[in-house]
Structure formats: C-alpha cells, structure tokens
C-alpha cells in the first residue's frame, strides 16, 4: 500500500526529516489560500498514485496568484494516467542547487534491508539503476542490529555527497531507515532530497540545508495490523477504483486488467496461470481474482458479483483446484449466486478439480453454467464465449 505524498511527508516530518511548508487543497480557492499563507513561489502537485507526475503535467510552479489559479485549475480534475486528480499539495518551492536520491528498501535476494544514496536525484532512479548501477551507492543492513551510524556515513561518502551536507544527509538516511523499520515500510524514498545554496533565503545561518522535496512511503500490507495509523491513512486515500474498493470490502486479491474474460480461481499461482492461458488461447483477461484458500459458498457468490459488476467482462471462467477449498462448497456458491438471476448476465464456464470435485460437479446446475473437465478446455470455452459477444 502506498501513501500519498502529503501523507508520507507528514510521517517524515513527524520523525524529524525537514520538508517544505505545504497544505492540501481540493479546490482552486483552497489552493489560493494555502499559497497566500505559505508565500510564493509555490509548487502545485497532483496527489495521485502515479509515478512521473511532473512529466505528465501533474506538477506546476507558480510565482503569483494568477499563475497559481491557472495551475490549480488545470491540475484539479485532470486525468493523470487513468487517475482523476481530486486534491493538490501546495508547497513552498525550494531554491536548490543539487538534488540527491535517498532510499531504503528490502533486498529480497539477500533477505536484508538495503539503504541507497545517489547524487543523481530528481530523475527516474529506476532508469539510473538499470543503466548506471554504479551511480547508486548501497549498504546492506543487518535487520537484527539496525543501521549503525557508520553505515549511514559510509554510503553517503561513497555516493560522493558534498562534505558540507554529508552529515545532515547521513542523519536523514538513518531517520529514514528507522521509520522504514518501525513503520513496516516496503519502500521509503526521498527523491529529490534538495540541497539549498548557502545564500538561500531560507538559510538563516548561511549554511547549506537539505530538504525532502518529495516523499514516498510504501507500507507492507501484511503488517498493517500493527500500524493502525497507516491503516487509517489507507482508508482515507482509497484505491480510486470502484471495483478494487469492492474487492477490499470482500477481502479478495483482485487486480483489474484491460480484457473481457473474467477470471476467478483459488491460489495466486493458479489464477495467474489461468490468465496466461486465456491469453495463450487468443483471449484477453479482464481481471485477476483469487478467492483464497477454503472459500465457502458466500465467498464464491461474492466473487461472481464482483466480476459481473465489471462492464468489460463478456464471459467468466471459474478455475478451482481444491486443497483446503472444497468443490461442493464452490458449486453450491455458484448455484446460489446464479439462481438469483432471471437471466445469467454473462456466460460462466466452470472447472473443478481436487478436494470434493466430483461432489461439486454432481450438484452444479448445468442449466446455468458450462462445465468442462480440464483447465485447457474451460479456458478455451470462455474465450470462445467472449469472442462471440464481442463479434
């Protein structure tokens, strides 16, 4: 789960990481009031879960109220890579001379946290990582000890950060690690971490300062049970997708895709395989929906309700391989859900295998669904149905 920038900045600021003055605004008038209290120039930044907001027109600078009105008006309500912008962050523009990248994530290959610093801040760090891996200094952290101060210094010096701000950057990196550790982060990033010039108006002491101009904090969803504050932030942020919100309510692993064959199955690997087979047989998957292990009848009915709610879906394939999950429970759920309709909204193909599959097959109402014996046959039939509808 990803926090919005304004939420991540709140969390960072509470921990003592310097961030620019900022306020959230949902209308142009709120943005004008915010800018008036912060003071121009300001940056206006779309609060949506999209990378590369700047390039896509989601971040604008404004020197005056009229520029701000134009910027806020353009960004609020815009469609940014499929997400509607409902709110902007109005933030003091930082007069900077250098930009750094600072991040903490889990290196799954080594099973250990890794801290990263690069002087190539302000750009797409994944491109830097792919093209010039040496431009990013890395330090692995022993999760039993946490990050020692020397490790923070080491990675900052290795990255080649200017000496007069190296101490501040090392201290910010340690704070970021501690946050990541205590708040169950999966990724914590500051990009860019801006370095001001000595003469900057913000710098009363004539010293260069560092300030987090952006903030990314992704939380491990499996750890939300012990991060109640962050869980609340998730509720506030929402996913922005009605179907995905419905999936959260039902407790399904669900991902919406572009195609027209709805897919329901049990177990992530098997559902992914079903998606791949739909594609292999010339169809296009509309979604990934994993009902999980041990699903009972009501859960199966909920899954059908979800997939039927997607207007793009032209046919549905059910692929259940029972281990904990029982075929008769699944069949009962399918019958129960479909018997409520006068007319079945979209053709449903069912394939049951594993625990109690035979019992399930025996009770499935074959007037309502098409039954196939193998995975391959079921997928092919669902693809045919979808093609007939779209033809």
């Amino acid at each position, binding site marked *: 789960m990803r926090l919005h920038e304004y939420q991540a900045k709140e969390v960072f600021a509470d921990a003592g990481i310097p961030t620019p003055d900022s306020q959230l605004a949902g209308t142009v008038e709120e943005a004008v009031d915010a800018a008036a209290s912060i003071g121009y120039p300001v940056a206006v930044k779309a609060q949506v879960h999209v990378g590369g907001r700047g390039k896509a027109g989601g971040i604008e600078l404004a020197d005056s109220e009229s520029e701000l009105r134009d910027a806020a008006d353009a960004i609020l309500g815009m469609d940014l890579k499929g997400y509607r912008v409902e709110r902007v962050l109005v933030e003091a523009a930082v007069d900077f001379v250098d930009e750094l990248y600072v991040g903490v994530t889990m290196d799954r290959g080594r*099973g250990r946290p890794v801290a990263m610093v690069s002087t190539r801040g302000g750009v797409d760090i994944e491109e830097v990582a*792919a093209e010039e891996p040496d431009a990013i200094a890395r330090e692995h952290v022993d999760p039993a000890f946490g990050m020692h101060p020397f490790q923070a210094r080491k990675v900052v010096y290795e990255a080649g950060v200017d000496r007069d701000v190296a101490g501040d950057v090392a201290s910010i990196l340690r704070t970021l690690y501690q946050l990541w550790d205590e708040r169950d982060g999966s990724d914590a990033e500051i990009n860019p971490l801006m370095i001001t010039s000595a003469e900057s108006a913000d710098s009363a002491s004539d010293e260069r300062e560092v300030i987090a101009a952006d903030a990314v904090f992704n939380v*491990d969803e499996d750890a939300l049970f*012990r991060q109640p504050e962050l869980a609340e932030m998730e509720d506030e942020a929402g996913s922005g997708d009605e179907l995905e919100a419905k999936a959260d309510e039902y407790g399904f692993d669900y*991902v919406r*895709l572009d195609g027209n064959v709805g897919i329901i199955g049990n177990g*992530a690997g098997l*559902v992914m395989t079903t998606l791949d087979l739909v594609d292999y047989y010339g169809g296009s998957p509309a979604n*990934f929906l994993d009902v999980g292990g041990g699903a009972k009848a009501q859960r199966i009915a909920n899954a059908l309700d979800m997939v039927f709610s997607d207007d793009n879906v032209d046919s549905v394939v059910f692929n259940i*391989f029972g281990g904990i999950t029982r075929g008769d429970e699944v069949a009962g759920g399918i019958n129960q859900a479909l018997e409520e309709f006068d007319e079945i909204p979209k053709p449903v193909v069912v394939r049951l295998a594993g625990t109690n599959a035979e019992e399930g097959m025996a009770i499935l109402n074959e007037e309502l669904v098409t039954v196939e014996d193998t995975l391959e046959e079921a997928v092919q039939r669902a693809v045919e149905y979808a093609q007939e509808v779209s033809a």
Partner: protein
Amino acid sequence: MSVLVDEDTRVVVQGITGGEGRFHAEQMLEYGTNVVAGAVPGKGGQEIAGVPVYDTVQGAVREEDADASVVFVPPAFAADAVFEALDARGLDLVVAITEGIPTQDMSRVYRRLEETDTHLVGPNCPGVITPGVAKLGILPGNIFSAGRVGVVSRSGTLTYQVVDNLTQRGIGQTTAIGIGGDPIIGTDFVDALELFEGDPETDAVVMCGEIGGEDEEEAARYIGEYMDTPVAGFIAGRTAPPGKRMGHAGAIVSGSGTGTADSKITALEDNGVPVGDTPEAVADHVEDLL
C-alpha cells in the same frame, strides 16, 4: 528415497489447538505422517487428535524426539513461532504454512536461519510431501503418487495442477516441495534443486516459478552449471502488468524490467530447461525427459 521427509520424520505441529492446526494435524495423521506432538504456549498437557501437546517446541523435541515442525500460527505470532523452532535443538526441518507474515519479520528470521543448519520451507506455502509416506502441510494427498519426479513450486494450487497432470499420465513423484510465494522464504529453488540432484531416485525435476524476484534466473544458472538431473519448467504470470501485486506478496514485476516471466523463461531455456506454455505441456516435457 526422498528429500527432506521420509518414514522416520517425527513431526511437532505448532498451533495444533487452532482450527487449521487441528484439522491439518488430523489430515496429516490420516495420510500416515508420524505426528508425535503439538506445541502451543499455555496448552501443555492437553491431547489433540491423540497427540500430546507441549507448552514449548523444545519440550516436544525433548519428550517425543520430534525432528521436524509444521507451523500453523497466525501471522502476527508466526515469526516468533519460527524463531522458537529454529532455537529448539534437534529440528532438521521447519515448514511454515502461515500466509501474511510481515516481510521485515521474515528478514529477521532469515538472518537467524543463516546461523543454523535447519531447513526452513515457506512461509506461505502448502508444505512438503513424499507421496505414500508422509506429508507436512496442507497438500491434498490424494492427487500425488509415488514415483521418480521431484517437484518444486512457488505456488500451492499450481503445484496441485501440475502434479495432477503428471499423476494422470502415470508419472509419480519422489517429493514435492512448495517453497512459497513470499519475497523472503527459507528454502529456495537452488536449495531444492540441490536436494533433488543429490537424490539417486529423482530422475527428473519440475520447477514451477512465477513473476517477481530473481530466484528463477538464479536457479537457471545453477541448473546449467551443476545439474545432471533434467529439469522442466513452468512460469506463471506472463500476462501480469508491471507494478501490480498478483496475490502473492512476491509476485510483482518491478518497474525496471527484472523479474518478468520473459526473463525467467529465457534464462531457463538458455540453460537447457524446456518451459511449458501450459501445465499440460509441462507434463509433455517431463514425459520426453524420462
């Protein structure tokens, strides 16, 4: 022969008094697994399904000579349960079934694991089965059959699908290991392949991977360099879009293009591993290899 599990394996079930723990302890007993004890703090002295319960894993090891553990403990307490199992001297194998253990907890477990000789399988896995002999976990025993093919997989239900395809054709299995779909797991592909390579009765191996991480690429290099036993592969998630978590916490294609189905399939094929487009095609490949 088999790997990890055989007729002598003596199992303690951590969390045996919970719904899942009890149900699957019974299922394991019914399959013939030598379940000798349960371990649940505060429940010592009880008996579940005819099995004595101890307050600590160490107690179960001491009194019942347990040498393997299966963990059915809720996610918030599961890492602690695995630590307890790794701390108990005498356990060679710990199988963690629990789904949804926080990744940072697993990072600490993994670090501890590096200091022990114990094999950890999982978490978020279906377990380990030597058909006809013993199963440790939640796998449906009836679809497996004894034979000469080793199976290792990141996904539970996909394991069932592939094994079913094998069994239907009369191809039995030595041992099947579900290693789990989380970002940080104990036994990985290379560990499992090494075990199968060392087992004289395993004549071929099926490896089922999925998007996310680079374990499959690493396994491909290992196969190319060290393995004589032939391997057939399957990779789930060809159609998965980047940046979306596909159910498994580890199944996410990163934005920088690593961990994709294509990179994994290419790595396997470059090292002589035929990769099936469908589970059925994997069984075809295995038939050719045998």
